[in-house]
């Protein structure tokens, strides 16, 4: 399910972005974000947005998911994103996270860190009431 939605989203992105490297990075991010929404979302009302902010020389591409979640999930995602943003070296942070979770069975908890470290996208989140919005973005050279 997540893969189908991610593939559909990336097909759409490719109509606006010619840079294959950027779309590959977005593809990874879309997979992880959609998986999170499906896993932690507490209602069928979810949002998935793709945004391209064109500049003369640089453009910003952005993916955003919105979903409601249980209070403990909201706290957990806020904590994870705060830690991720505070980490001076995203790859070192990701490697530490992988090592610490490797012997633990069950859910990975690696998705957001993977987006930051492997896809090289900035990750942020905001919570309003019971709704969490996760935004990932990167800049790229403008095509035009």
């Amino acid at each position, binding site marked *: *399910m*997540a*893969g189908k939605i991610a593939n559909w989203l990336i097909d759409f992105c490719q109509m606006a972005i010619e840079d294959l*490297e950027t779309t*590959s*990075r977005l*593809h*990874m991010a879309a*997979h*992880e974000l959609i*998986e999170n929404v*499906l*896993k932690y979302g507490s209602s069928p009302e979810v949002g998935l947005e793709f945004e391209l902010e064109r500049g003369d020389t640089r453009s910003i591409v952005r993916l955003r998911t919105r979903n409601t979640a249980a209070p403990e999930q909201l706290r957990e995602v806020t904590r994870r994103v705060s830690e991720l943003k505070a980490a001076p070296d995203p790859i070192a942070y*990701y*490697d530490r996270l*992988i*090592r610490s*979770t*490797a*012997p633990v*069975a069950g*859910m*990975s908890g*690696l*998705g957001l860190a*993977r987006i930051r*470290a*492997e*896809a090289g996208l900035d990750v942020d989140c905001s919570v309003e009431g019971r709704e969490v919005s996760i935004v990932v973005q990167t800049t790229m050279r403008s095509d035009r």
Partner: protein
Amino acid sequence: MNAPLDLPYVEEEGLTLGPVPGAVDRVRFAGTGEAEGAAVLDRFLGLLHQQVLARELPEISIELEALEFINSSCLKAMVAWIYKVDTEGRPYKIRLLRDASLHWQRTSIATLQRLAPDVVIIQER
């Protein structure tokens, strides 16, 4: 000379996992691994680990070129297996044959090697 690996050919949850026909030390992964595929991959890697230990193979190769993508749940299954091999005496090496033209394979396979550099060998195809 070892007999071919005695492993099932698995087609489940978007993943295809199985031994390379006739090979004694090589398996092939294909498809896409999402959250539902993590348990499938985990089970297969458990069987593979047992086989490699029982046959005292010094190395196992995994062809990944046809693996289109795996999400972090499936990556975690790979992490758990590699961590186990690395922390339980490093009885064998793991050669990952990747397609470096796929962005995720470049980054994620490098991640796996950083986890256990004495165990994981990366080979480009």
